[in-house]
């Protein structure tokens, strides 16, 4: 167990003495993230208003009337069937508010207590008010479309005699932050930045093999598991360094995460980076085993990097570019990482949110499976040096 630390410390020591290597490790992320910052930083996000409106509704009404057509659910179904509207029932006010903040919905409606009795004309109340709540970033046009559609449908259903029953509505906005294009893209860029350090890992491993170092170590009392874990630890530390540089650089260009609370976000990121590093290092070991020489490995690894990068939506949001792919790429670790980063940095979820925990689980299972494969293949790798 102690040996894996010795391996990690040795790696970091030799790494820190390789001045050029060190320089590149720091410069490349600065360059990469600066370019991302320059390209996307100045851009306003134009895409956050979709032309399909997703509208939530909270039904506070406990009364119900006999006529099935004069009901909240019938009204909402009718709106839902319209081409540009998706309606979604939400349990409570607070959860609707959260979803609105997370941009899962564009607006939500609150139906007040006694609403159904009222539209069935079984009460003597003279007036009922429903509430429609928007984000402040939603444009005037969108608000008008949403409110006029909703009110049009309700009045159409309820008031075949337009003057019989009077329904008012009030509008309200909540403040959600304007998310820049750069911030939206950041989860992908960060994932890619981490992933690309795999080339360094495979080149280091294949070089050590070529120089006979792995074989020499093999003849001592260290186990393959210790060697692999040692490399993983040092590599994870280097990844963290690059990650911090990346976040710092992107912040200069206007990256502003939206998080649940900062500790929870940082902790979630830490876990994600460690799990990605586990996966990535295992992958580095497996591909070093197959590709053998530093030359082959340094190039060959891109055969894996390119699809992992593209299908993860690191650079092009799959939701816009290829929504059809989404169901098929969800298992790809890099995709999982991008989704977790999105949850933590944009959607403002805490790391203990079930959907994030589930993703952690997936990521660790895939990383562990690959790690085991790496350990099994390692023996062959260290020995068959020429």
């Amino acid at each position, binding site marked *: 167990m*102690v*040996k894996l630390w*010795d391996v990690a410390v*040795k790696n970091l*020591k*030799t790494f820190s*003495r*390789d001045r050029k290597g060190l320089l590149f490790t720091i410069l490349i992320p600065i360059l990469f993230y600066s370019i991302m910052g320059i390209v996307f930083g100045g851009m306003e996000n134009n895409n956050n208003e979709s032309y399909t409106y997703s509208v939530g509704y909270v039904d506070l009404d406990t009364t119900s009337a006999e006529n099935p057509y004069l009901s909240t659910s019938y009204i909402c179904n009718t709106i839902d069937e319209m081409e540009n509207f998706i309606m979604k029932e939400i349990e409570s006010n607070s959860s609707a508010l959260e979803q609105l903040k997370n941009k899962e919905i564009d607006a939500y409606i609150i139906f007040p207590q006694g609403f159904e009795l009222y539209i069935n004309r079984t009460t003597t109340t003279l007036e009922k008010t429903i509430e429609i709540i928007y984000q402040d970033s939603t444009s005037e046009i969108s608000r008008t479309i949403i409110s006029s559609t909703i009110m049009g449908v309700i009045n159409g259903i309820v008031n075949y005699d337009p003057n019989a029953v009077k329904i008012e509505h009030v509008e309200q906005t909540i403040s959600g932050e304007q998310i820049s294009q750069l911030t939206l893209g950041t989860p992908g860029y960060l994932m890619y930045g981490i992933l690309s350090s795999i080339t360094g890992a495979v080149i280091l491993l294949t070089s050590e093999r070529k*120089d*006979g*170092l792995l*074989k*020499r*170590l*093999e*003849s*001592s*009392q*260290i186990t393959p598991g210790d060697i692999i874990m040692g490399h993983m630890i040092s590599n994870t530390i280097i990844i963290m360094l690059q990650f911090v540089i990346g976040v710092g650089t992107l912040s200069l260009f206007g990256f502003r995460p939206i998080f649940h609370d900062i500790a929870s976000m940082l902790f979630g990121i830490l876990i994600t980076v460690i799990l990605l590093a586990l996966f990535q290092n295992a992958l580095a070991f497996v591909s070093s085993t197959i590709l053998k020489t530093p030359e082959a490995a340094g190039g060959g690894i891109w055969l894996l990097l390119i699809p992992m990068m593209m299908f993860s939506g690191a650079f092009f949001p799959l939701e816009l570019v290829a929504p059809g792919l989404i169901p098929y790429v969800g298992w790809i670790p890099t995709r999982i990482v991008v989704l977790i980063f999105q949850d933590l940095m944009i959607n403002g979820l805490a790391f203990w949110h079930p959907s994030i925990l589930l993703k952690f689980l997936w990521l660790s299972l895939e990383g562990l499976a690959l790690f085991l494969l790496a350990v099994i293949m390692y023996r062959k790798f*260290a*020995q068959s040096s020429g």
Partner: protein
Amino acid sequence: MVLQNNGTIALEINHLKKIYPDGNVHAVEDISFSVKEGEIFSFLGPNGAGKSTTISIASTTLKPTAGTVKVFGYDVISETNKVRKHIGICPQDLVFYNNLTVYENLIFFGKMYKRPLKELKKYADFLISHVGLDEKRNSLAKKLSGGMKRRLNLLIALVNDPDLIFLDEPTAGLDPQTRRLIWEFLLNLKKKGKTVFLTTHYMDEADYLSDRVAIIDHGKIIALDSPFDLKREYSGGDVIEFKFHEADTTVQKKFQENSQQSHFKNVSYIDEDNLFRIAIHNGLLTIPDLLKDIQEMNLHISDMNVKANSLENVFINLTGRRLRD
């Protein structure tokens, strides 16, 4: 250290065979021998003879195709970990971390064994001073001279204080002075009761250091004995080499015609060098007679070389080839 079996065998190799699947190379063909504890045992053979292959298998980093290897009674395949505890290996190539210092390299490799750190540090310094690397203790390995790198390469093999040390051409390419230094160092290890298994293609090295030498060629052991006995048995005494102005066929014919002549009984012809070699006991005293006979055969000498009795002669007599450095 606990010894198993008969208590004196450090390394026991039985019918060892290695075929590299890559190119179907028969690197080692049915080798058997054993090395006693406290012995310096050498593998002497030309390039590609199978020396490194044998060392790799015996030191647990290469799987044999057939046969068994035991180190202090432990099988290298089924009891790998027990074997590793007792051995140290100095590979033929320089293998260490260039960006660590001499001292850091020793400590790092030493930490791969279960040894108290304090003891390890002391031992590392002892080793460093023993081969004259004190001044370079804190220099990065990549900044050492070639000979210093060899010394570091050797020290790493010793850092766990192993009982059996495998050294694959430890002095290749060193200046005579450094070779001497390393030789004395190895003899010192022997004095401490360590067993050394060494490969070399330097005759003088094998001769000077070894208790016993195995001559290996094309993956087979062709002779195994103490240097003294090998020379007595196979060298045929001193060797005198000639080159002639006349065509080789002419010379060969003349030697055949005079083969009843006592001097010419042991003439051998080495094709690759156009050399005629004559092995004679007490060669130096016989030279005047030999020259007279050659003159009488009407041959004209273009070059002549006298080689005192050596393991090189043993090799040439056994294989008909020279063992090149």
